[in-house]
């Protein structure tokens, strides 16, 4: 039995050389600046972030501070990564930064990388930003209030196939914040409306529907996100192709909620 696969049995892959203009900012309160790095021998079948790994490994091996950037699953689903590549959030690939491939870039290209910085996403270091404002929007009402415990059988409430698929299109949002970074106004309307759309489409989301939209829309404003002016840059930059139709839904729900007299349940939250 052959014990071990060849580490590098394949022919040496083609490589490219790139020039990286990277945003460097040691701390949130510091002034940032661009620095230029040459990175050679990048295999064409590497991913974009693997190219940054190669660059960082070179920096670390020379005792220099690597470029701080975030990523986790590297499968396009966790939403951790997010770099503005050549002016586009997540770059030119209609995917998350981690799914961007080196073969999509020309040999010898100069690539500019910047953080997803907007007013509501302060820089922590280099390409890392604080996106916790998005969590606080969800905290305002992006849930169905249920405790853990016995529940009715799900088939006792049939849901149309297409309705569930529509809800899933909305809840496919990964919370990366590209929509905010792409918006000239720094609006988080696509993010917020996706959650409102997901829960508002399903029967389980109905009891809190009006309360939810009111609170979440107000939370967006409190966090300092801009307002929506229908630029639709959010939809163009969304790696999960979430449609701006949910923003329309959210606005309709919001109007309905604010003219219907608000929350009449009183303070039901036990302490």
């Amino acid at each position: 039995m052959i014990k071990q696969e060849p580490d590098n049995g394949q022919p040496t892959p083609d490589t490219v050389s790139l020039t990286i203009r990277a945003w460097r900012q040691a701390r949130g309160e510091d002034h940032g600046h661009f620095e230029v790095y040459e990175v050679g021998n990048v295999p064409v079948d590497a991913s974009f972030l693997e190219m940054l790994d190669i660059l960082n490994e070179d920096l670390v091996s020379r005792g220099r501070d690597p470029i701080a950037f975030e990523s986790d699953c590297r499968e396009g689903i966790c939403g951790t990564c997010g770099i503005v590549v050549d002016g586009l959030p997540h770059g030119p690939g209609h995917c998350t930064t981690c799914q961007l491939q080196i073969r999509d870039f020309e040999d010898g290209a100069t690539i500019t990388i910047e953080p997803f910085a907007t007013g509501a996403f302060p820089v922590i270091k280099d390409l890392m930003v604080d996106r916790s404002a998005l969590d606080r929007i969800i905290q305002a009402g992006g849930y169905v209030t249920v405790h853990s415990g016995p529940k009715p059988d799900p088939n006792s409430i049939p849901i149309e196939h297409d309705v569930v698929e529509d809800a899933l299109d909305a809840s496919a949002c990964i919370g990366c914040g590209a929509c905010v970074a792409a918006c000239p106004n720094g609006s988080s309307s696509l993010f917020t409306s996706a959650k409102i759309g997901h829960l508002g489409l399903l029967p389980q989301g109905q009891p809190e529907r009006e309360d939810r939209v009111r609170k979440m829309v107000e939370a967006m404003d409190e966090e300092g996100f801009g307002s929506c002016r229908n630029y639709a840059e959010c939809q163009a930059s969304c790696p999960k192709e979430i449609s701006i139709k949910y923003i329309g839904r959210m606005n309709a729900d919001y109007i309905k909620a604010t003219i219907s007299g608000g929350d009449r349940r009183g303070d039901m939250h036990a302490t």
Partner: protein
Amino acid sequence: MVELNSKIPDGPIEDKWHSHLEHARLVGPRNRPTYDVIVVGTGLAGASAASSLAAQGYNVHVFIYHDTPRRAHSIAAQGGINACKNYREDGDSTYRLFYDTQKGGDFRSREANVYRLAQTSTQIIDQCVAQGVPFAREYGGMLANRSFGGVLVERTFYCRGQTGQQLLLGAYQALQKEIELGKVKMYTRSEMLDLVMVDGRARGIVYRDMVDGSIKSIAGEAVVLATGGYGAVYFNSTNAINSNGTAIWRAHKRGAAFANPSFVQIHPTCIPVSGDHQSKLTLMSESLRNDGRVWVPRTPKDTRNPADIPEEERYYYLEERYPTFGNLVPRDVASRAAKVVCDDGLGVGSTGYSVYMDFRDAIESKGRDTIAEKYGNLFDMYSEITGESPYDQPFRIYPAVHYCMGGLWVDYNLQTTIPGLYAIGEANFSDHGANRLGASSLMQCLADGYFILPQTIGDGLQPLYRDKVDTTHPAFARTEAEVRDRIQRVMSIKGDSTPLSIHKRLGKVIWNNCGMSRNAEDLASALDQVDQLKKEFWENVNIPGTDGDVNQTLERALRLVDFLEIGELMCRDALMRDESCGCHFREDHVADDGEVQRNDEDFSHVAAWEWTGEDSVSERHEEQLSYEVMQPATRSYK
């Protein structure tokens, strides 16, 4: 010396869980707010446990190294979640799910735990639907199902190829609600680096603020570890970049027994390794094997376009070798079969280490649209990464490290050998024996988090009423000092090796010697090689920057310190388990038909390792497994 008391309740298996609950000590709703519970990790297990405990009234403190709880790697689970609803009337039942899981795990898990998991499974679906999880529905509005490996029923519920994401968002949203209500305090970008022990009990944790580098601690009456598996010890795996074993390993070094560390699942359908630059391996969901047919050319080094290879020259090796289960054999069996055909020279691709998974026939019979609705996002993901479309040519796949069946030893209450320390989800060892079935991880995580831990934790907490410890206790300052000292040691070495290069080499040693095929000689040599890497780390690693700031190189190095020790224990465990079972394939224990050969007489036990100090070899203890309901049999999928 650790004591392994599994605390399995008496009585017939179907009554154990309910009678256990009836006799458990409870903490009343008015007293719950006086207890502080620390939860580490917010994947399916952590988020569901934290939100459930908070809703009951406990004060919950949740720690993650991510920027938000929604990033946890449960999010990447694709195919589905099992539950024995028997909606299809195809013979499913609690017993059937128990049977499949126990057989799938090659009879190396605890019957009582597995049965409880099967009993709880149906509640999970009810709970998640009530939260608004959009499971796939049929046109009549009823929930849809599909099938996974190692079973003959359709019991898997799914949301396209992103089931983990949708379930995690359900748990995340429940958690966000409790944060808003003030019952959960969330600590993001805060990595647990040690466990604080007071008088033999877990009483808190020490953590590092990853933004300013400060070392802090927090006290509580219970600590719950929901930190996932340690598969990233192999470097290349389907785990996330930051997945690590530090929390459970630090708990182990404080006295928690570590069970079956060598039981690691190698998932058969992943995008193959393409070069040394690769930072992670991407899984392609097992659900694809519902419609995809796995094959290799019958002729070695056949470089023709796969579409041009005629039917009679294709070797559908799973269908031929396992006619009953075909392409849906369990993961360990499918992975090994792929390795065997590639070792025999039949593999495809430039390395010869991949096989085809072909949708040509499914697209022909069911239509492209049906296949796209079922698997569209998986097909897209594959095209993005490889530049090839699975609609036009077969996937190329190869096995990759995916999941740890091993983990912290826990009793029936999910408590480790340290009182007050609990482990849930992948971080514990409890339910999957030597091999986990597909779509069972999500089930176990949510069973632990929503339904089991919230009902068992009270039993351990109740006696502690008004027996509180806070961080002024000297144990906290002492443990913090040890952590600071560890960081200073790592920062001050200033050699020439990078943590990444050592991690990659560690991964190769473990993959080549403690992967899909193992033998005593290689394992012994792996122990020496790991020892060398440890020396290299402590003599020659280099961390630029300071520890008082964001320092991702330092984060990696601290995790690597623990991976080096975990890797050593894995090899030691694999060496001592002188039998084959499930994922643990020892070349010296092979049946005549090439399948694994168990040794029930000597190894019907859980191996639980006790840490005995830096300079001594860990001690192996055994928890004997009793088979009251189902006698171990040869596991056949033919």
